[in-house]
């Protein structure tokens, strides 16, 4: 069987198509998720498909009753998604950039996340919040953040950050079928990356990390694009006889601690690579877990290679210094190993 290569963008689109075909309660909401307000006289039903074209074709296929263009009223339509999810629908709602989370955060933090608990388990909120994260587009402080941590911090939410097209599809299928609210992060710099994606809908379970590369000297856990940076660094380090294991947790709540701890048990060393802000973050979370539960395996300090404690800068030389690019990882690994 020949490999079917898809971009992450198209893999997400395919997952949406298959989920909507399989379940009439699945529907999409967001700003210009169709575009042209879904009107034929406005460039067809899919003038946009979102700013990255991820949802292109869906309005044509499913009609604008199931692909709802909204106004710029995120708190309103995220709240509406909560109410729809509570009453029998499975909304997949798009926050165009995660940077805009602040205007709708109450509905995520206090409503989506807490409805089940504060009403004693009598209700559920099966909704997916798709959003776009990441630097590298020279998009400056308000269009480049990752903000994983403000969601991973909140009990009641699940968080998913795929790094391959197959994972993007499989994890999104799981997210849509899941009965809990899921925040699904898509990295804008990774949309066009291709890999093999099975055509059939094959959900990938949450809470199962992937070992992306095996190694013996050091474990690197990457967060989304951090996985790719780590793989590139590992490749470079292999040339210097340093053997790096790279782990992709894929989902952060729930988190597959076992795979990470087992890897650290083998290598004795841990580095975490994440382009997010460094404080009170997913990177500190992973470090703290291993500093407790994996302490006995550790041969040296746990190093985090992250963005610095600054907003994301615009100018290319600044943003390049900002991101945890492979070169920085290589240097840190060597420092850590005294190599």
């Amino acid at each position: 069987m020949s490999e079917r290569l898809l971009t992450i963008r198209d893999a997400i689109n395919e997952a949406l198509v298959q989920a909507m075909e399989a379940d009439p309660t699945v529907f999409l909401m967001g700003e210009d998720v169709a575009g042209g307000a879904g009107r034929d006289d406005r460039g067809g039903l899919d003038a946009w498909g979102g700013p990255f074209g991820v949802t292109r074709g869906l309005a044509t296929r499913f009609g604008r009753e199931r692909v709802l263009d909204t106004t710029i009223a995120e708190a309103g339509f995220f709240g509406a998604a909560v109410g729809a999810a509570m009453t029998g629908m499975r909304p997949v709602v798009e926050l165009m950039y995660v940077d805009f989370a602040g205007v709708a955060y109450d509905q995520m933090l206090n409503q989506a996340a807490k409805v089940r608990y504060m009403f004693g388990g009598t209700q559920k909120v099966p909704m997916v919040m798709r959003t776009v994260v990441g630097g590298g587009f020279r998009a400056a402080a308000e269009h480049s953040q990752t903000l994983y941590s403000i969601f991973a911090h909140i009990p009641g939410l699940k968080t998913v950050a795929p790094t391959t097209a197959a994972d993007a599809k499989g994890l999104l299928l799981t997210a849509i079928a899941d009965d809990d609210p899921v925040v699904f992060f898509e990295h804008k710099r990774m949309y066009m990356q291709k890999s093999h994606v099975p055509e059939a809908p094959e959900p990938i379970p949450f809470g199962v990390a992937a070992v992306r590369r095996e190694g013996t000297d050091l474990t690197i856990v990457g967060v989304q694009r951090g996985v790719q940076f780590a793989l590139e660094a590992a490749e470079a380090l292999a040339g210097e006889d340093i053997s790096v294991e790279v782990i992709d947790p894929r989902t952060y709540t729930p988190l597959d601690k076992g795979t990470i701890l087992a890897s650290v048990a083998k290598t004795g060393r841990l580095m975490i690579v994440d382009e997010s802000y460094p404080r009170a973050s997913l990177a500190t979370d992973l470090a703290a877990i291993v500093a407790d539960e994996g302490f006995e395996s550790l041969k040296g300090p746990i190093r985090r290679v992250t963005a610095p404690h600054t907003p994301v800068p615009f100018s290319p030389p600044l943003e390049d210094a900002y991101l945890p690019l492979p070169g920085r990882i290589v240097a840190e690994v060597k420092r850590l190993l005294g190599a």
Partner: protein
Amino acid sequence: MPDAPTPTHDQLYAMYRSMVTMRRFDAVVTELAEADRIPGYAHTYTGSEAIAAGVCAALRPSDWIASTYRNHGHAIGKGVALRAMAAELHGRRTGTAKGKGGSMHISDFGVGMLGAFGIVAAGMPIALGAALSMKMQGRDEVAVAFFGDGAVHQGVFHEAMGLAKLWNAPVLFVCENNQYAEATALDYHLHTETVANMAAGYALPGVRADGMDVVAVYQATLEAVARARAGGGATLLEFVSYRFSGQYEGDKQTYQPADERAAWWAREPLTAFEQAAAERGLDAARLERIRADADAEVAAAFAAAEQDPWPEPDELYDDVYVSYEGGLR
């Protein structure tokens, strides 16, 4: 509302029952709070009973409501069991939320009570979403969001109103204008003549009625519900009442002038109903029996609830997720 249907005697008795139950329930809450016999914050509803009773009388059991921290009246109006409410206020495992929510977070899916949300106006888009959901499922249920006069300033009020118009959603936004948002009086905070006026910004109908008169509330709601069921979309309803209760139990209400309170008290909804009863052909003795029954039912609910078991500490971990791979601990 000249051509709105007049409620039948049975309906009137039921609304009265509902109102006196609310009044009594919250009177007990106040007593318990003062005696430190229930934990946490409690927000009572005295003075606005006609609103919850009138609105809910115009709804089906399968219609939805979303409420606030000040939810006891709404819950009772929609038919949540007193016993389970009392147990929830007491933090017992038998409560509507197994003790996890308390007074501010009563819910009961079975009777269409979506839940009570503690963030001002947060329930508005949630009710909107329930309405959208009903529409998408081809059902003719409607959804109602209750909120206060203070909530009209919150951004999500605006967003929910606008999206309701955009989607032509079968939702009723019910503003309980009880003259106060915490210690802030309406004439300080409201910019328009009435809350109902604000509907114009969204090209939605805005209707104002006397929130002390359960029949007026019922009729105004009925009309909006009929419009929503028929595909006519959303309505902003403003019912005017007075917050005789404190913002929360313990609030001294120094900001409410005594003469103002007295003037409004003369119109409080139970007295108003009782005064109009004869004219409406209702039987005074039956009203008295209803009062006695409600008192007894409330007393029994609280008495029983106070004997109920506490949750076990480990129940803390239940009900966060439907499922969580690897477990929470």
